[in-house]
């Protein structure tokens, strides 16, 4: 019965897709709440505390508000592209989640080129932002979109190079293999200083890649009144927000997977007893713990630093991060050849 088999596969795909979608929406809600609380914590204030216990339902109230708002399309806008852009941005954000291993043996799509897939899919977001900026027919949006083009394309290089350094060490592009290779210690500990540098470069560059402060020149409220999303309202705007949080989750999850062992518990090579104790903590707890830790760091950036200027932003990438990453990849390669990392 071939027909039945196909039907079953399709049903499975739809169910998995729906579960993932619901999970990611809830995750975006949670990150929105977390961001407000982290901001409040850093700014000596309370944050949301009225709707629901400790303000947890505030984000639901906000979503309801956004749902009921009119989704305006400016007269002068290119209507097709204007409405398509949020879809593209959120789709690329969702696509990048697929190969991430959430727990031991729990992966939506075990693709053997996971690292390559993530870096290529997430770089497609720039198309959506350029589309949004161009089609809005607003000068601020256009400046924002053009900044975005320069920014994302530049910072992808550093992200790619820091990912390459771990790929060189593991010899595999599959995220699963990378996690397995950290069974006797996470790369950040095993890889000595070069991997730590790669980790720092990755966190900085991916903050820029997802347009979060201090690299939020694309939005830059004070300069461009919102940048590429100036003209968006209602659910279309909410989709940008959601994409931002999903992207934040994706880059943090990738950083956690590549450098901090993903779902792999804290293992020290040789100490079998200790490793067994660590194994008692479920792998999903390890994964989300590490991811949230990196998310927390990236959120702290936003609430600490002022914004860079466009030329400083590009200088940082082309004059500092990129040369450092290039030298670093050579060092890591040398380390891999000499097997110093074990």
């Amino acid at each position, binding site marked *: 019965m071939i027909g039945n088999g196909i039907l079953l596969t399709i049903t499975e795909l739809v169910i998995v897709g729906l579960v993932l979608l619901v999970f990611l929406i809830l995750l975006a809600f949670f990150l929105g709440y977390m961001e407000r609380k982290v901001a409040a914590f850093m700014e000596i204030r309370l944050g949301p505390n009225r709707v629901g216990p400790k303000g947890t339902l505030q984000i639901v109230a906000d979503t309801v508000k956004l749902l009921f708002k009119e989704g305006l399309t400016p007269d002068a806008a290119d209507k097709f592209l204007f409405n398509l852009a949020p879809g593209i941005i959120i789709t690329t954000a969702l696509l990048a989640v697929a190969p991430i291993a959430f727990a031991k043996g729990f992966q939506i799509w075990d693709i053997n080129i996971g690292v390559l897939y993530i870096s290529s899919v997430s770089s497609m977001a720039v198309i959506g932002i350029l589309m949004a900026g161009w089609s809005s027919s607003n000068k601020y949006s256009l400046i924002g979109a053009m900044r975005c083009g320069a920014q994302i394309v530049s910072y992808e290089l550093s992200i790619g190079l820091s990912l390459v350094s771990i790929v060189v060490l593991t010899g595999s592009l599959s995220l699963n293999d990378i996690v397995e290779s950290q069974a006797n210690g996470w790369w950040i500990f095993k890889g000595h200083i070069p991997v730590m540098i790669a980790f720092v470069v990755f966190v900085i560059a991916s903050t820029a890649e997802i347009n979060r402060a*201090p690299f939020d020149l694309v939005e830059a409220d004070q300069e461009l009144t919102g940048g590429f999303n100036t003209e968006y309202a209602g659910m279309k705007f909410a989709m940008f927000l959601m994409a931002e949080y999903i992207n934040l989750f994706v880059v943090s999850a990738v950083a956690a997977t590549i450098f901090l062992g993903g779902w792999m518990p804290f293992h020290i090579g040789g100490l079998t007893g200790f490793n067994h104790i660590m194994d008692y903590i479920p792998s999903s707890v390890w994964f989300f713990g590490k991811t949230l830790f990196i998310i927390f760091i990236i959120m702290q950036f936003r609430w600490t630093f*002022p914004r860079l200027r466009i030329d400083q932003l590009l200088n940082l990438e082309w004059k500092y991060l990129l040369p450092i990453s290039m030298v670093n990849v050579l060092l890591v390669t040398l380390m891999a050849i000499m097997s110093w990392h074990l």
Partner: protein
Amino acid sequence: MILGEEDYITEEGEFVVNMGPQHPSTHGVLRLKVWLDGETIKKVEPHLGYIHRSIEKMSESLSYRQYGYLTSRMDYLSAHINNLACALVVEKSLQVEVPARAQAIRIIIGELTRIGSHLLWFASAGLDLGGVTPFFYAFREREAINSIMDENCGARLTQNFMVPGGIVYDVRPDFQSRVKEVLKQFKDNFHEYNEILTGNVIFQNRLKDVGILTKEDAIAFGCTGPTARASGLSCDIRKMYPYDGYEKLQFDEVISTGCDSWARYEVRMAEMLQSVRIIEQLIDNIPEGDIVAKTKNVIKLPKGEFYQRVETARGELGVYIVSDGGASPYRCKYRSPNFANLSAIPHIARGYKIGDLIAIMATIDLIIPDIDR
């Protein structure tokens, strides 16, 4: 030249952006017309008048007791100091001796206003450059200052306290202890400002060598206040033409020769500490006595012209009054610091990036209602 001729875009790749009248970082309804070449600013043209309320004309139909109240709506962050200027010009023309107690309280309130104003500037400068957190740090202290204002003059924004001859009410009995509390809080927390903004390398790079205003330009454009003092121009009215008892106080005029936005930032930060120093000299030595000198019920200025200048948080405010001997000014003219400071922006912003224009506006610290009046 045909009117509006310069609106045309002459070169390829050039385009015009209207910053304002509704824009997050113009802090009001200022409209800057910016000619851009990509990110680079080719020309800036300020357009004014969006909040013109004809305060000067209105003053002509108000009595000398009333006209000062309008000035709280000009530079609303220096409301008390504006009021003081209006009171001083009347006192000067009538040669009224202000009681020592009133003078001391005026200076304390005035300097508290200056600290509060600079705190708001600090908050919004951080915000303009993309850092939200400094805003809340500065507002914590500004809130404390505002509640002192609230307790003593009954308002938090359009404050009125100074009247011709002295002050309108006596301060509350706990005034001294409350001010000391606020000063202690301010001094204890001042290091946090330095940690979150001053020491931040991104912030420094955003301001250093941005918006160079040379001393010659500062004089030519008539810049005053911290903006001019950051260009090495000594122009503190409290030192040059002391009024209301400032001559008895020990404080330094903060001058920097950096000429850039960073120098303007540093000057304001140091000025806050000088204001603290002034208040500390006075707070334990407020003399007893009257709070207001005796004046006639209907004040009539002698025929003639009178001018009084004061140092507000943003520079020199001059009040020029022509009197025909009646109960209200024949002509009233304010020389407002922000109007002159704004005129420097088109000159110093040329050639910088959009982000720099925001930094320049943030450090020049414009209050739009004071420009239009």
